[in-house]
């Protein structure tokens, strides 16, 4: 009963990877995450026998999901693959924290600042990034694909992905700072010295 064993193994694998797949679908954004996960599982079921190394199953499923996401976004004209990467002004969160010193009583300012962000906060900050930065960052730094694999997944030249990663990192740092100020995430951060709430510094 080869089919039954394979089906059981596939179901076990799908259950195990379900939270990660859903999370990836949400972080990539722009599509119905539940529907994308269902389509991924269906596709995985159809091509399960092409999976030769069970150790690679996690990455294999994420590759299927990202390919489906990319094709769907492109079909809907929402994948900005031809959009040139704009110039992001240099921004260093490390130095901004040193200069602004939002936690004057902290001996470990930088670590404490990052420690103030919950999972929800980080997710919101990621959602604020333009797609051309968010997708490479998610695939590279959360899912662990290397830069060349990211380029293949997004069907973009390696150099474009490298630029997007570089600018995306800076944009992510800038958005962390803006979000912390706007939301008052760190005590007193939303208020300026004269007591007025400031906007973003983007």
């Amino acid at each position: 009963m080869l089919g039954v064993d394979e089906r059981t193994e596939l179901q076990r694998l799908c259950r195990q990877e379900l939270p990660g797949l859903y999370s990836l679908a949400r972080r990539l954004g722009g599509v119905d995450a539940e529907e994308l996960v269902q389509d991924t599982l269906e596709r995985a079921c159809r091509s399960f026998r092409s999976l030769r190394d069970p150790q690679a199953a996690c990455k294999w499923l994420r590759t299927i999901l990202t390919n489906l996401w990319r094709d769907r976004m492109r079909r809907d004209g929402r994948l900005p693959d031809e959009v040139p990467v704009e110039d992001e002004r240099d921004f260093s969160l490390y130095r901004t924290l040193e200069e602004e010193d939002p936690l004057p009583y902290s001996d470990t300012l930088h670590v404490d600042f990052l420690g103030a962000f919950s999972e929800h906060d980080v997710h919101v900050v990621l959602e604020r990034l333009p797609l051309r930065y968010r997708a490479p960052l998610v695939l590279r730094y959360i899912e662990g694909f290397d830069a060349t694999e990211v380029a293949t997944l997004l069907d973009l030249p390696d150099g474009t992905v490298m630029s997007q990663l570089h600018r995306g990192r800076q944009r992510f740092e800038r958005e962390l700072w803006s979000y912390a100020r706007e939301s008052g995430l760190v005590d007193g951060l939303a208020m300026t010295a004269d007591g007025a709430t400031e906007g973003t510094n983007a």
Partner: protein
Amino acid sequence: MTVHEPIGCHEAVAHLWEMLDGQLDELDQRLLDRHLAWCLRCCGELAFARELRGMLRARSEAPVPDDVLRRLETFIDDLPAPATGEAPG
């Protein structure tokens, strides 16, 4: 033997994530190491970049809502036996 100009903080910071990614070539790595050997501030930037990467990986999970989880688990229960080979993707 070619003598290379030392790099400044601006260039060093621009290379930190690439270094953590293991994507610097030998020359850039050597120039960055030389800079980090004396620049405390860029060492701080490097430690911060490590923290930031860790935060991004560990704290960006989007949990599956209970109702969605139930529907997806039912979907998995109903999956048929895998078909014969097809290329992934």
